[in-house]
């Protein structure tokens, strides 16, 4: 058993850390406070290979392994949660579904632009009346000649308003539940496809969350992604992968908070000494550091299993569940360590606290993760 990162993985980590310090950190506050979307940054990220990390190079991706992808997400989210989610949803979900389940033609047609950072991909499963119970979606797709006609509304779709390509899950057989769902590629500007309202959110305010409306939206027959009626199974597979990634994002946000706390506690003086000298403060920080390491190991394990092409459903859910709840605790304690200053928007810990909450909800709530794990361990 070997817990060390490879030479390449260490160099990825160092390089992405430096990139984020240089390019992302100076604007992370603005991204949150002004809901600023840094288009130029994503172009740079495309050149770095961050917009199609695990996609093979023949489709324009970077071709790195899943553990390295987690390393990257941790580094990005450490500096900016909004950017972390934008990158995660694009890589894991938007691009992920096209790469994992798309035909050779579809991969060749869509991936190069998406992996270069010129365009975003998003992924639409959730609907106003179908969240945790995702198999109950009501959006339909009906074949009419050479075209699929899509009708329905999707909700909470990350980058849905800016994406050039959206993977849409829709019912193709109303008589069946999960086994009557298929996935489709819908391009921006297709008649009948429009963007509805954008969410005004607690956190991750620099990440766009959109409602997508389909009204007799006609797409070519060949835009069916994967086999007909196999879309839900494909989506669950993509979500498994995404969950590990949300775990990595959580570890990154928690680490960002931890680093702020260590620095602040050493410098803030009360009762004539730095508050870092008080055991009560030390223990909070120690717990954060320890739990972050534990969460990271769960994330790496799940990603390692993905790389080995063995089942990782349980491990991915455990990584996401533990990491997101851990990070929620860590960011809450971070505000406590900062005291009144932590409660103000002058310091970044309140941003970490607001940002992390989504990780307990998106790509399956903590309750859903526990349901998945319960099933996996035979309950």
């Amino acid at each position, binding site marked *: 058993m070997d817990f060390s990162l490879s*030479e390449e993985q260490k*160099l990825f980590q160092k390089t992405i850390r430096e*990139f984020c310090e240089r390019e992302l950190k100076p604007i992370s506050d603005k991204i949150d406070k002004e809901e600023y979307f840094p288009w130029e940054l994503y172009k740079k990220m495309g050149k770095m*290979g961050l917009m199609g*990390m695990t996609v093979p190079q023949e489709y324009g991706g*970077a071709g*790195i392994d899943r553990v390295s992808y987690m390393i990257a997400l941790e580094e990005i989210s450490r500096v900016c949660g909004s950017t972390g989610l934008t990158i995660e949803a694009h890589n894991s979900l938007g691009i992920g579904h096209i790469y994992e389940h798309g035909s050779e033609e579809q991969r060749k047609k869509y991936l190069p632009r998406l992996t270069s950072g010129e365009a975003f991909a998003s992924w639409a499963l959730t609907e106003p009346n179908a969240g945790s119970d995702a198999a109950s979606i009501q959006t339909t797709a009906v074949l009419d000649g050479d075209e699929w006609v899509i009708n329905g509304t999707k909700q909470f779709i990350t980058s849905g308003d800016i994406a050039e390509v959206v993977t849409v899950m829709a019912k193709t057989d109303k008589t069946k539940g999960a086994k009557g769902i298929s996935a489709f590629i819908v391009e921006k500007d297709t008649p009948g496809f429009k963007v509805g309202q954008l969410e005004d959110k607690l956190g991750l305010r620099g990440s766009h969350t959109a409602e997508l409306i389909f009204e007799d939206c006609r797409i070519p027959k060949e835009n069916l992604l994967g086999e007909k009626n196999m879309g839900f199974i494909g989506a669950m597979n993509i979500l498994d992968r995404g969950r590990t990634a949300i775990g990595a994002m959580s570890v990154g946000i928690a680490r960002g908070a931890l680093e702020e706390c260590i620095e602040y506690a050493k410098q803030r003086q009360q009762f004539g000494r730095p508050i870092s000298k008080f055991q009560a403060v030390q223990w909070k920080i120690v717990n954060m550091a320890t739990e972050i390491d534990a969460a990271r190991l769960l994330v790496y394990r799940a990603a390692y299993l993905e790389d080995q092409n063995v089942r990782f459903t349980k491990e991915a859910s455990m990584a996401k569940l533990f990491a997101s709840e851990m990070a929620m605790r860590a960011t809450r304690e971070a505000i406590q360590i900062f005291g009144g200053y932590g409660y103000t928007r002058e310091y970044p810990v309140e941003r970490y606290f607001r940002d992390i909450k989504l990780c307990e909800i998106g790509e399956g709530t903590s309750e859903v993760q526990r349901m998945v794990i319960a099933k996996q361990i035979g309950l």
Partner: protein
Amino acid sequence: MNIIVCAKQVVDVSEMKIDPNTKKPILDGVPQKISDIDKNAMEEALKIKEKHGGKITVLTVGPSDAKERVKELLAMGADEGVIVTPPEKHDYYVVTSLLAEAIKKIGNYDIVLCGEASIDLFSGQVGPRLAGLLNIPQITYAQKIDAEKDKVIADRDMGDKAVTVESSYPVVITVTKEINEPRLPSLMQILAAANKPINEWNGDSLASGLTSIVDTVELKGVSMERKNIVFKDDIDESVKQLVESLVKEGLLR
């Protein structure tokens, strides 16, 4: 244009701590990195290569675990790496002698690029010594380099002014930190670097019997201790006390 970039593996001094009792630097477990200014030299080499084509060889005198660091420069765009392992005791005389021998062995070079100094010891000796040993011109502290086909023009940073100089090839140039911002490699370049050659040469086989001239007797950290005196009286009284105590310390006259 063939360029040799001399790069040194150093401890990451920002992560280094000083033992409070012995005052000795604690080097155990401190990560290693390429000396910052050597990366500026690498960036400059890449710019010259982009303009004229050619080959960039990264040369380092250091332990074989420097490979991991050399890879970073290969990822940035160097074509090949050479690591020369030095004898256990080595000073600037030994290191530059080995660099010079290695440069001769690599051969066929137009420019040798170095950082103005390394961030650990900051002696600034390597570039000038190399030029002497290789018997070629040197341009130190370059803050701007314009490599033309058969001559190079550079601005040397002289503090409050710059001096523009010109040289034929081959030439040794040392660069300042301000000359550029080193690029970051992409993930693809990092992967590709794994296939670029890194040769390891034994120092002894390049020049045998080299011994240090300078003996490092001791390495000690400077510690800064604050007196933590707070003057709490009213402002006029506090200022008076502050001035008095600064005079007493001999800091004000």
